């Protein structure tokens, strides 16, 4: 799995690529939590367009970050998941609490 992190004001944009399973979940959780550490960061935008596989370990990481940020008045947004990944997110009920956007720009605009 590849992870690229970028700060944009009060948001962190994380671009993920590859497969998200138990093998990478701990590293991903740690990297995201580090990026979300600064006080002024309150939102996380996960660009999933290059993610080819996700299972409950990946869902757990997303839900865990969601809980942390909501607690601080922040948001998690998901960008452009592939159909097979989107299906897992949908079945898990993530879209009832986490917004989905076509692009990072759209997600960034809607967040503030």
């Amino acid at each position, binding site marked *: 799995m590849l992870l690229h992190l970028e700060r944009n004001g009060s948001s962190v944009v994380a671009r993920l690529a590859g497969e998200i399973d*138990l093998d990478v979940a701990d590293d991903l959780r740690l990297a995201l939590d580090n990026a979300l550490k600064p006080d002024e960061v309150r939102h996380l935008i996960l660009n999933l367009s290059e993610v080819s596989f996700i299972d409950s370990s990946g869902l757990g990481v997303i839900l865990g970050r969601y809980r942390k940020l909501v607690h601080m008045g922040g948001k998690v947004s998901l960008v452009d998941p592939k159909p097979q990944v989107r299906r897992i997110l949908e079945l*898990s009920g993530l879209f009832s609490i986490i917004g989905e956007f076509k692009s990072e720009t759209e997600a960034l605009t809607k967040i503030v």
Partner: protein
Amino acid sequence: MEETCQDRTNHMSVSFLSQPVNIGLARVTVACFASQLDLTLSDLEEIKVSVSEAVSNAIVHGYQRAPGELIKIEANIWDNSILEIIVEDSGAGFAGPLPEEESEESERVRLGFMLMRSFMDSVEVNSAPGQGTRVVMRKDTKGKTTTKNIITCAT
């Protein structure tokens, strides 16, 4: 499902150490085996997710993340249409329903079983403390590749 009145069309088994890096190997191997059935890409994705969940549970719960234990996967095709996947560990096992405590891990396990149950026609979990865990998942691919039927099987 009565196995006695079914023909085993094909079989494979593979075992590997209880390391997270092997989860990818497990799901791709089973998906490769399953692809001899006439499955859609979406079916294969579902199979990959189900295998990933069962193997993740074996690593995290069965073996408490100890990396040197064995996980065994067996896959069978019955009557040219029913895919059966068996994931087995000889780890801690458990007695009843999983604990309800709220943690990222318990949430992962709940989501994992929900996904397995959505994607497979049946999911059986046999486990006892100290006796390991055996998960048997079956998916009927509706005889897409065959004219044989399985109507004679008792259910």
